[in-house]
């Protein structure tokens, strides 16, 4: 069973085409930015947040797995590590957003703040220098965590005599707590404050869960596509985990909807009014159906979880819907534009995604084989 020892691998051509597509997408966005900078930054923000979900989700999953253990994680761990390795790239890709803050965030526009009493009271938190400092802090936390986890993993892969080095768990506990806080506040800073009057205290949890779901779907998809054949039990567990995270997604989304819908308060409900009108309602409906109903029903079936191809299809669907969800969550915050302009959001997704995938595939190649082999579940 030599397949069992093969790491997930892609031909170099895949990397090249990813970089090419990325360059193309970024060119479109930059060209657009010269003409309509506001829109360009908006598309860029959506795409950035959507792709950021993968490395951050993978980072959290890695630490979660260090704490809980379980064979399901062994199969995915090297993908997580490779994905986490792309965090420096994302820190770099964040810089354009600092440039575009004035176009994106109403609270960063002095003339808007001057006219708005609520925003003036919020200036204590929502102001440009503090925003930059916080963003720096978030990335610093993530990069440090990523650095240590990867370094230890390379240096001391888990050995056959059982226990992993204790340092993993010592880091992962506080690390996860730190992740929870930084992801929450990053979500508040980067996405929620686009509509600075609105607030929802569940937002950070939803964001973090979305990242976990995206990362899990991504890792499952790659493993099933290119990796070794999985142990049926592990594969079933992965299917169940995907189902659990989709259910969690639906749960959180519904909880927020229900509470805001019942409250019907003027400072809360506009968020949904914007997202359930002007065509966005169809996006919302597709989220309900394709992010929850369809994957949930499919994952209930044991046959789907047993068949790698079917499970991979479901994972791909979930992953795709994660991007749609991020689009639906973030993009309606901006003043309404014609649907044609919205299509250009795709260019940013391809642009950032191409570059990210290229770097990720490179990282995947350099993931030390002993890490892969030793962590592999029995096939």
């Amino acid at each position, binding site marked *: 069973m030599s397949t069992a020892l093969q790491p997930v691998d892609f031909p170099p051509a895949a990397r090249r085409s990813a970089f090419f597509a990325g360059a193309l997408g970024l060119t479109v966005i930059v060209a657009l930015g010269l003409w309509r900078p506001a829109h360009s930054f908006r598309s860029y923000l959506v795409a950035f947040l959507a792709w950021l979900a993968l490395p951050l989700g993978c980072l959290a999953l890695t630490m979660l797995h260090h704490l809980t253990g379980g064979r399901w994680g062994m199969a995915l761990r090297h993908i997580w590590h490779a994905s986490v390795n792309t965090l420096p790239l994302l820190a770099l890709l964040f810089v354009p957003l600092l440039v575009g803050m004035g176009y994106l965030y109403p609270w960063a526009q002095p003339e808007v703040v001057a006219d708005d009493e609520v925003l003036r009271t919020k200036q204590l938190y929502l102001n440009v220098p503090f925003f930059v400092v916080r963003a720096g802090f978030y990335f610093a936390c993530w990069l440090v965590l990523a650095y240590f986890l990867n370094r230890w993993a390379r240096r001391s892969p888990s050995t056959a005599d059982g226990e992993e080095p204790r340092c993993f768990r010592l880091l992962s506990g506080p690390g996860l707590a730190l992740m929870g806080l930084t992801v929450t506040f990053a979500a508040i800073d980067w996405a929620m404050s686009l509509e600075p009057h609105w607030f929802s205290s569940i937002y950070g949890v939803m964001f973090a869960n979305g990242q976990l779901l995206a990362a899990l779907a991504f890792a499952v998809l790659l493993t099933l596509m290119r990796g070794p054949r999985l142990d049926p039990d592990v594969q079933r567990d992965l299917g169940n985990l995907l189902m659990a995270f989709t259910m969690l997604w639906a749960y959180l989304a*519904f909880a927020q*909807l*229900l509470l805001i*819908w*019942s409250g*019907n308060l003027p400072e809360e409900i506009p968020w949904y009014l914007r997202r359930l009108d002007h065509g966005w309602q169809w996006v919302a409906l597709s989220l309900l159906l394709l992010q929850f109903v369809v994957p949930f029903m499919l994952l*209930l079936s*044991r046959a789907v979880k047993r068949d790698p191809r079917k499970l991979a299809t479901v994972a791909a669907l979930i992953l795709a819907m994660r991007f749609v969800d991020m689009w639906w969550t973030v993009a309606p915050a901006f003043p309404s534009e014609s649907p044609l302009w919205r299509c250009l959001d795709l260019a940013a997704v391809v642009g950032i995604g191409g570059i990210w995938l290229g770097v990720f595939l490179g990282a995947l190649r350099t993931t030390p084989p002993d890490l892969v082999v030793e962590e592999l579940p029995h096939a």
Partner: protein
Amino acid sequence: MRPRIHGMLAEFGTPTDLVAAVRRTTEAGYRRVDACTPFPIEELEEALRLQPTRLPLLVLLGGILGGAGGYFMQYYAAAIAYPLNIGGRPLHSWPAFIPITFETTVLVAAFTAVFAMLALNGLPMPYHPVFNVPRFAMASRDQFFLVIEATDPQFDEERTRQFLLDLQPHDVWEVPH
């Protein structure tokens, strides 16, 4: 015609022995065979050639029934039977109906799981012929039993007893009705 006895009972000491014995029994062509164990043994399903249970399907149906019923109940009450304007919310206020729909789904599905399991197993059945063998009390402790029922077409008191003895059990008994 009703056979004289219920069947033959053989006792084994370990799950491995029992599974092997059951395999040989089904391979020998016996069909009305059962195994009684102190805990579930997955391998017996395949050894006894059991069909996969229909329970998940029934539970799914129960869940769908419960969910649809629960939602309709609320819709009927709030929009048809007694349409009242509560705080300007629509009569068909679907977000508010989801929690109960979920609960009824789970409730009916759970009832289905339990009662279908009991019904398919024919429980409660406080009297069963195997209990007539005193040693069978060990089936709920640490011993593993194989039953060949007398209604099996291949069953013959002498030959079946011999067959069971060949499996090297701890002991073999006749099970009276």
